[in-house]
């Protein structure tokens, strides 16, 4: 139920109301693509200077851009597309936002109400298609409900556990006139997200924390979504509890801090997984015990009591049974816990972890030919955490998680839950409009870049200052790695031809650079950052390199494969003597 403002106004069409509603929501940018069903909306957008519209080159790109904007800024992202194929092209992006709890509102055109169900031209039941991948969705059947629906859509997308909301807008509804009244506030009797943690649960948690000898904070994307990095830092420092993060938690806690363990999970650091395996208390903070983190669930943190802070009650005890669940907003719950906890004596525990870090650092063999690890490490050294790093999906994504040292929240954007190849480039467009203070770095593999490469045109047209990096190993590298390790090296359809990316960049009017050997890497990165506006660099990297450490899917900590210690070259022809072992540690 929503409160209405009372000032009477002139009659407006649904399309005008739509635009006015976005302005009321302080939407500054819309990523979209026009078509017949939304032509009226686009007409209403034409004269509006308060809202910037970015024409992507594919509706999937529009949704990923909205995601990138939301992830980098913490504000909801908005996409606008036409009916039918425009709407169905948004499906992957919506599913991605659903898996990663990203607040976006997707507006789709729809055929006129009386044509719905008739197989009308460009009709698709997008509400039905996206029902399982949206937090909520609406079909607006009456122009008088439009403003309220938009208000609700933004409210639902951004509160509680955030997520994508879809609003389907039939063409005739958008042409109908009514008086515009934007609701001041929204209160839904059926939807009231938990914010504060229950005091009894907090007390139980504090009791467990006070007794812990080997505690670990296991921090997920929820800490970033709720803007809790400040509270988390205070909490870890006050209690002296080491911190490991998930892929989505990267940036929630500075990896330069001695309490940082880097990432855990399938390709996490050896020491973070070891610490979790031996810890006696695991405090999950906005993390959901995903299978890429836990491996075999009943062997995950087997000695630990578990506390789980999460805003979504359905995440509690979904995968792993916990001792003390606390349902609430991560930021709020940490604020509630902070005055109740005190310093623990974790000196020995931290020393043990320090030894593990020294014995099992992240490392790789540097040689004549370029390793992806090296490129990422160099970018890390040059930007010192002050960049928004947007990854795609594959080996380079895992090395980006390992070899970049994240310090600030919202500086690592990735498709973690759905693992959507093609995410990085369009997401970087959105991120660039959200953040002007840090350089925007989009890194893709040769596979992923080709999935949304059309967005180079968007980047050129709007002069989006994205530093585009392609780590080209000539393979769908992550799949090749699995085929090597688990399918007897039968490389089935993973080797892949690429275009000349420097020429592609030039064709789009974007300066392009290339490095083919290690000693060119630094210069090329410097050139990339020295170029005003967008620029692209291709790094030809060694073809067959593997991401380690690795806990194979569904297995336990004890099956962990550490990074090989011997100096070995993953490609033929490289002289063993060229190699130098480079080590890298978090914290």
């Amino acid at each position, binding site marked *: 139920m929503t409160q209405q403002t009372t000032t009477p106004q002139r009659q407006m069409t649904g399309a005008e109301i739509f635009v006015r509603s976005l302005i009321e929501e302080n939407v500054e940018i819309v990523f979209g693509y026009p078509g017949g069903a939304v032509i009226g909306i686009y007409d209403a957008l034409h004269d509006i200077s308060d809202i910037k519209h970015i024409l992507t080159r594919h509706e999937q790109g529009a949704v990923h851009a909205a995601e990138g904007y939301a992830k980098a800024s913490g504000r909801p992202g908005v996409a606008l597309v036409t009916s039918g194929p425009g709407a169905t092209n948004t499906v992957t992006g919506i599913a991605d936002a659903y898996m990663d709890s990203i607040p976006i509102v997707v507006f789709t055109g729809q055929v006129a109400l009386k044509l719905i169900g008739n197989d009308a031209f460009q009709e698709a039941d997008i*509400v*039905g298609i996206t*029902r*399982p991948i949206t*937090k*909520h*969705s609406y*079909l607006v*059947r009456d122009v008088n409900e439009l403003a309220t629906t938009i208000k609700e859509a933004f409210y*639902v997308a951004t509160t509680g556990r955030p997520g994508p909301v879809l609003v389907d807008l039939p063409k005739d509804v958008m042409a109908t006139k009514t008086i515009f009244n934007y609701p001041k506030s929204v209160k*839904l*009797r*059926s*939807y009231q997200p938990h914010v504060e943690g229950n005091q009894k649960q907090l007390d139980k948690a504090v009791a467990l924390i006070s007794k812990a000898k080997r505690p670990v904070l296991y921090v997920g994307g929820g800490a970033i979504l709720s803007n809790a990095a400040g509270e988390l830092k205070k909490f870890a420092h006050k209690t002296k509890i080491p911190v490991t993060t998930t892929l989505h938690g990267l940036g929630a806690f500075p990896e330069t801090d001695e309490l940082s363990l880097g990432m855990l999970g399938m390709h996490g650091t050896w020491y973070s997984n070891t610490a979790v395996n031996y810890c006696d208390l695991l405090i999950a903070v906005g993390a959901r015990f995903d299978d890429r983190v836990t491996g075999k669930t009943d062997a995950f943190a087997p000695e630990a009591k578990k506390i789980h802070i999460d805003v*979504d*009650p*359905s995440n*509690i*005890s*979904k995968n792993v049974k916990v001792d003390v669940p606390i349902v609430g907003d991560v930021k709020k719950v940490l604020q509630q816990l902070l005055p109740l906890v005190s310093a623990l004596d974790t000196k020995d525990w931290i020393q043990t972890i320090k030894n593990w870090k020294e014995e099992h650092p992240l490392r790789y063999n540097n040689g004549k030919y370029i390793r992806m690890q090296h490129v990422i490490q160099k970018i890390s050294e040059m930007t010192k955490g002050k960049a928004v790093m947007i990854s795609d999906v594959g080996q380079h994504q895992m090395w980006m998680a390992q070899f970049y040292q994240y310090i600030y929240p919202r500086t690592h954007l990735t498709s973690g839950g759905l693992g959507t190849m093609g995410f990085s480039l369009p997401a970087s467009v959105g991120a660039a409009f959200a953040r002007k203070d840090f350089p925007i770095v989009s890194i893709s593999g040769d596979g992923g870049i080709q999935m949304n490469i059309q967005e180079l045109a968007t980047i050129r047209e709007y002069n989006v200052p994205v530093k585009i990096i392609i780590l080209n190993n000539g393979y769908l590298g992550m799949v090749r790695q699995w085929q090597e390790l688990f399918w007897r090296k039968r490389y089935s359809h993973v080797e892949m031809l690429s275009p000349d990316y420097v020429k592609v960049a030039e064709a789009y009017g974007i300066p392009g650079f290339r490095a083919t050997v290690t000693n060119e890497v630094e210069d090329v990165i410097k050139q990339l950052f020295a170029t005003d506006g967008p620029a692209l660099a291709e790094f030809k990297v060694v073809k067959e390199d593997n991401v380690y450490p690795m806990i194979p899917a569904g297995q336990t900590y004890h099956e962990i494969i550490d990074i090989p210690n011997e100096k070995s070259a993953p490609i033929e022809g490289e002289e063993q003597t060229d190699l130098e072992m480079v080590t890298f540690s978090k914290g």
Partner: protein
Amino acid sequence: MSETIEQSIAQTARKHTISLLLENKFGALNRVAGMFSAKGYNLESITVGPTEDASVSRMTIVTKGDDAIIEQIIKQLNKLIDTLKVVDLTYDSFMERELALIKIGTTPENRPEIMQVVEIFQAKIIDISHKTLTVEATGSGQKVDAIIKMLKPFHIKEIARTGRVALKREFVGEV
């Protein structure tokens, strides 16, 4: 995934009757049914209808699962934006009713016998022709099962069942 769910159902599953109040909005039933199929939960019966408040619908769901699955089902139902209230009636004392229409092919010889069964179950005959007889049976799911079982030896031509509706019982004294 579905295999493990089914295995655990086989181990400790029991039947649960869940009563759900939700906003009477477009597509609400779809959201509930869709959630069950998306998550691979068992859905034995689902009924929906209006309540005393026109803006609210009541859904009665009969499902099967072990405690962990039922806990997730309830959480997932609560997570739906349109959900107002979820109650697992299983642990309360509750009233449940189901209605079945059973059309039976008859002969002059077996008709009295059928009518006897109908009488025992306090069911009603609501249609009759030379060759058929239609019975309306109301009661708990078990009672409806039982009358159908008793009528099986005759020639059942068609059955329509409503699925379960249920409400919490308020009476608290000894029965």
